[in-house]
């Protein structure tokens, strides 16, 4: 019975290939969009997680201001003394690296490159999991004296020196020139999507004196000793900072301590929300696709009124006609779903490549989308099918 009805439905679909294809185009695009969004979104989340993991899982960062991004209230920066206090008063700390950044343009001979200078200590390289490709990092004497030396990232080297080894060369930043003493190993894209290799690192004093003109420190990186509780260190840090920044007990912090775990949560949370939003938009298009199926099926029922009348006259039962139209709708939408899944696989692989995120095949969303497309066929096919089945055969046969 069901098999026979399936034959009839397949024959009806085959009779009008182009219209059938256009009918399901909405479903194809909807399913493809949902799966692609979710797959690429999951890939992006994974990429963020990987990048943060490359920073090390035992890293804490202290930054001024309670919140991050626009609308944040301005809060005072840190001083050298804060860094020293952390170093001496908090246990289980491996290294403490003060960081001050400044956007600059670096010049080498006839080439120039807009980048950011980071002023810090040699500890910065340890805290940030940096390794050297060539040369060395600055020593304590250079740090204390505020010497004009720098370690550059791969991107800066590529733009200023091409394929040449930059170690020993001079680059000019603003009014002073600076000797390149080291080249960092490439790290790739950072957690925020920034290029981590687009960096010039100098001793903190050099940046403070020659570029920012203040004793301020923008951020402090702290790497916690392996095996020690990150939360405990974090708690001590917060207490110390409140004390040093003279925050009354009823006032909120005007600084924040981020750990990499939190960063993971924050950033993956953001990408997850984005993925959900895009997926929801795509799901709406799937719904619109369903309405398209209903529309075409209704037109089809009207157009095929005489055919339905003939079927009823030669002995088709009401529920057989209903089932045939329903199966037509379901078969169409399922075919659309399968096409959408194939399209999504191609689009996801392509997009993942372009966006530089891993392609993570997600069976759940594929199965879900397919089932959803089938359900759309049932829901949006039922009304037209019922309309077909309830036709009066005499009226239907007379229909022009």
């Amino acid at each position, binding site marked *: 019975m069901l098999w026979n009805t399936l034959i009839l439905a397949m024959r009806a679909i085959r*009779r009008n290939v182009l219209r059938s294809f256009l009918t399901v185009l909405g479903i194809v695009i909807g399913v493809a969009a949902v799966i692609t969004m979710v797959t690429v979104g999951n890939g992006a989340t994974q990429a963020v997680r990987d990048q943060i993991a490359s920073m090390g899982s035992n890293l804490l960062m202290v930054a001024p201001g309670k919140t991050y991004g626009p609308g944040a209230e301005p809060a005072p920066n840190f001083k050298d003394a804060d860094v020293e206090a952390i170093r001496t008063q908090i246990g289980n700390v491996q290294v403490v690296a003060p960081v001050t950044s400044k956007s600059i343009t670096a010049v080498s001979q006839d080439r120039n490159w807009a980048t950011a200078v980071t002023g810090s200590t040699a500890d910065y390289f340890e805290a940030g999991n940096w390794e050297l490709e060539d040369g060395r990092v600055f020593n304590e004497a250079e740090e204390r004296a505020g010497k004009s030396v720098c370690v550059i990232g791969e991107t800066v080297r590529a733009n200023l020196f091409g394929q040449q080894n930059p170690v020993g060369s001079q680059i000019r930043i603003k009014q002073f020139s600076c000797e390149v003493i080291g080249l960092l190993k490439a790290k790739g894209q950072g957690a925020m999507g920034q290029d981590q290799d687009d960096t010039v690192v100098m001793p903190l004093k050099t940046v403070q004196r020659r570029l920012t003109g203040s004793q301020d420190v923008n951020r402090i990186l702290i790497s916690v000793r392996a095996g020690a509780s990150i939360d405990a260190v974090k708690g001590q840090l917060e207490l110390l900072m409140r004390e040093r920044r003279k925050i009354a007990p009823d006032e909120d912090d005007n600084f924040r301590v981020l750990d990499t775990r939190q960063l993971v949560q924050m950033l993956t949370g953001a990408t997850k929300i984005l993925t959900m939003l895009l997926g929801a938009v795509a799901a709406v298009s799937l719904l619109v696709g369903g309405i398209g199926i209903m529309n075409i099926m209704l037109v089809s029922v009207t157009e095929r009124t005489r055919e339905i009348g*003939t079927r009823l006259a*030669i*002995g088709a039962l009401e529920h057989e006609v209903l089932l045939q139209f329903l199966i037509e709708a379901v078969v169409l939408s399922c075919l659309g779903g399968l096409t959408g899944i194939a399209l999504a696989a191609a689009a996801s692989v392509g997009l993942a490549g372009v966006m530089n995120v891993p392609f993570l095949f997600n069976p759940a969303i594929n199965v879900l989308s397919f089932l959803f497309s089938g359900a759309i066929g049932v829901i949006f096919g039922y009304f037209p099918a019922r309309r077909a089945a309830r036709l009066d055969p*005499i009226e239907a046969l007379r229909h022009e």
Partner: protein
Amino acid sequence: MNAVEPLIRLSGITKTYGRGQAAFQALKGIDLDVAPGEFVAIMGPSGSGKSTVMNILGCLDTPDSGAYEFQRVHVERLTRNQRALLRRHYLGFVFQGFNLLARTSALENVELPLIYRGEPAAARHAAARAALAQVGLKGREDNTPSELSGGQQQRVAIARAIVTGPAVLLADEPTGNLDTRTGQEIMDLITALNRERGITVLMVTHEPDMAAYARRVVRFLDGRVESDGPNNPSSGPAGHLLPEGEGKTMRPSAAPGQA
């Protein structure tokens, strides 16, 4: 006639369309018996009730009052689905407009009623091919209706009607859309089916030439049977009422014999 159990018996059938002022009584009490193997032409002007009675005979419509017995089953008491099953197993329909499925091969069109009967594919194909051969369309199985002439399309429709081996063939103006010559060929085919396979034929027509093929003519007027009797040979083309197998009219029916 009394010795033979009637296949169809209508008694006191009435049918009214609309209500109140607009009500139109299409049938005002019809009594009609049809014995197995008869070839009955139903004639009458527009609005005489011949189409209404045909719809009731075809179990597509139900009377307001009166009884319709088909092989002693009271059709007026059946449900919509039961009437559909009755159509499926006992009736074959031929329409004025052919009503074939477009973009569908002749074979698949003829197979359609068998699909509803749940016949397996092999039996279905064989039966459909045989029916097409019987109507003289051997070799045309894969043609779609648009690739066939009007007469050939009506042959496909007839094949679809007889493929299930029905007891009754209901033909509603089967030659209405065909030219005279093709119409005569179709009538020859229907006559042959009636005579050779014993299929009871009920045909609505307004063309006396076509009614002349029938052995009995029922005339309707104003919702009543005006006259009912054996065909008057003088009103039809000469030769049609000769004993079986003798006239020039049997040409198409020779085809299955040769096949």
